[in-house]
């Protein structure tokens, strides 16, 4: 069994947006309408001279208990055998219940497909062929780490099990498989 997940190391994100461009290109998102599968919003904390700037890449969290799947009447939204949350476009009637139900603002209506779309972890076009998602491959800072959360040798497994990578809003109970590192622990050789 595989369970794909991603760890995002915020300390390594430069905010360059290469992942956004790679995703838009790879997945042909309707980006001209502002609809994308991943975003990199910027946050500024504090006041001069003690200012901190943080980029927080966001995408579908591929929740283990996804509310979007729970509300979908036709089963168009589903979690596949590798834990990736996907949409069967031909089964989607476009009721938009899933868009409203997603607490991580990950879904949008693709007017060309007349269906809902969202991040797929590039499952069909890359991951199933042994490649990494486009955003991971293109990340300049190496901030996005992708892998199998059930494989104890994978980096994502280690980062999560060491408690370093944590979910956003764990209290919502959806068990996101995208985790974040806010402060990286010092390692040997660092």
């Amino acid at each position, binding site marked *: 069994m595989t369970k794909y997940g991603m760890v995002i190391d*915020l300390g390594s994100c430069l905010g360059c947006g290469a992942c956004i461009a790679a995703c838009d290109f790879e997945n042909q998102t309707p980006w001209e309408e502002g609809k994308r599968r991943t975003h990199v919003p910027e946050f500024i904390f504090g006041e001069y001279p003690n200012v901190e700037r943080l980029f927080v890449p966001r995408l579908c969290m591929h929740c283990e208990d996804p509310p979007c799947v729970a509300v979908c*009447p036709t089963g168009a939204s589903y979690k596949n055998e590798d834990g990736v949350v996907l949409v069967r476009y031909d089964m989607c*009637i476009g009721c938009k219940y899933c868009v409203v139900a997603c607490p991580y603002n990950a879904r949008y209506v693709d007017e060309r497909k007349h269906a809902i779309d969202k991040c797929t972890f590039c499952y069909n076009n890359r991951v199933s062929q042994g490649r990494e998602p486009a955003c991971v491959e293109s990340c300049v800072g190496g901030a996005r780490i992708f892998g199998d959360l059930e494989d104890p040798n994978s980096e994502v497994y280690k980062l999560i099990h060491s408690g370093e990578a944590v979910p956003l809003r764990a209290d919502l109970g959806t068990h996101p498989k995208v985790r974040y590192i806010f402060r990286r622990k010092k390692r040997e050789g660092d």
Partner: protein
Amino acid sequence: MMNLLIQHIWGVYIAIYLFLGGMGGGGMVVSYYFCCRRNDNKLAVISAITSLIIVIIGVLFLMLDLEKPEKFYLVFVSPHLNPHSMIFIGSSILTSFITFGLLFVTAIEFKWPSFLGKIISLLPWYGNRSFTSAMGILASIAGFLTAFYTGVLIGVLKSAPFWHTPALPLLFVASAFSTGVVGVLLVNETIGIMAPKSERHKYQEYCSILGEWDAILISIELLIIFTYIFLFTYGPEEAEASVYLLTTGSLAPWFMGGVVTMGLAIPFLLEYWHIFSESRGGKPSCALPIIAAILVIIGGLILRYVVLSSGVMTIFLPPS
């Protein structure tokens, strides 16, 4: 304050759908009362048909909101059907509402216009009193469930904390019954105007009964709204923001003005005044309850709209 994401995916069409579903559902229960408790078949039939039409128009608005309305059938027959989805459950409730409603209407003994009358009188259940009453009860239950479901559909979502409360379905049910009652009040008045003079006092009496019921329902609604809003001023953060939007922010004219004042407080006073002046032996007239009815209906529609538009979605960024 950081940028809030306010729900904007479900707009006017879904608001109309939720409103009409509630009003039709509530109206059906009132129709049952007039048929089977008051033996006024004319008022019962016309109110029940009106309720059915209202719900069907509501469903059309839901369809209009879909990206693929032509594939709506998948809700019932998709190979991956999800029986836990509130949309599947709601669609099943609506189907039974329409089915039982049609059986109920066609069972009531009533002088239908010529052609229709001929067809309906051929139906084996036409005029069967126990069948009428059974179908009336089933249609009323389905009507109640329709009204309840319109609140639950939104209430189950945790993505906007302001919606995730038992107060929401309760508020929608109270509003559904209130709008259903005043809908029948308007039907009653239309029949009353056309009735011969000798029968008018009956419709006058119904007007007062319905006005009184509505006044009670409005007070329940006001109590729910007050509790709902008041408790959420204590958080969570997103729901607090929703309360702010509704009470002092951009939606305040719609909510405080349109719903609370125009749609509830004023109608309540009008209905109360009607009851008061009647008890003083004033001239019989249904004018005040009729004005109240129109305001209640407009307020009910705005209520659905503002609830949808005040859904502040969960804040998950930035990390603190």
